[in-house]
């Protein structure tokens, strides 16, 4: 009966790489979703001149 190959390091590497890619994309989307308000508030109206 052949011995089971000892290659767990490759498995761990693949799982870490996949997790990093997914987490990085999640963070990227999160940051892109944190945009300032769509319409900036209008500037304050100028005071009417005193008569």
């Amino acid at each position, binding site marked *: 009966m052949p011995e089971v*190959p000892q290659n767990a390091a*490759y498995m761990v590497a*693949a*799982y870490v790489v*996949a997790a990093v890619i997914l987490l990085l994309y*999640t963070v990227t*989307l999160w940051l892109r*979703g944190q945009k300032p308000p769509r319409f900036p508030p209008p500037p304050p109206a100028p005071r009417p001149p005193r008569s």
Partner: protein
Amino acid sequence: MSLVQKGRGITLVGLALLGGVYVRALAFTPVERLQGPAQKIYYLHVPAAIWTETAIIMVGLAGAFYLFLGDRRLDLFAQASAEVGTVFATIVLTTGPIWGKPIWGTWWTWDARLTSMLLLFFLYLGYLLMRGAVRDPALAARYGAVLGICGACLVPFIHFSVYFFPTLHPQPIVLKPSTPSLPGSMLTTFLSSFAVFTLLYVGFVTQRYAIGREKELGEAGSHA
């Protein structure tokens, strides 16, 4: 609750469940006797590959409908699906060679399946670069639709390349006409992982679509 928040919620649930899949795959799924622990890369690589291909089919379908209907929402969905497809393609093209090194003895070989998947990745990159480079939104949407349709046409070739050409890449053991060749516990892990990747695709695309929609509405508001 806004669409972005809904997408975030789905994504967070997907990531939490992905943690569960990791635990199940690494600790509770038996080790394959001939390939050893590296075989467990399959539970990430294959669901990511299926969604890489499905995502470009979605881009192609949305693009084709956009060309007929001219609905901006279809184009926004296509952009979102292309971006998420690129992320999944990156997972496929990194986990694949990590599996290939201990099993085949090489990180990469230019066989039909690997080369066609790399071509799809470049097509995704080209799509995203084009979307950033073309300033006219209507023109970019039309170019994108054509690229998406071309990409969708590539998918059957990728899937069946292992039958048409002599390749190192294994033939499908789940997505094939006969019953899956995986033992029960391995099949359960694979299906759980596939379900989680489905959830992640939906969550990512929802968020990306909502961000694109907000951006468009913002630009329309600033031009008004």
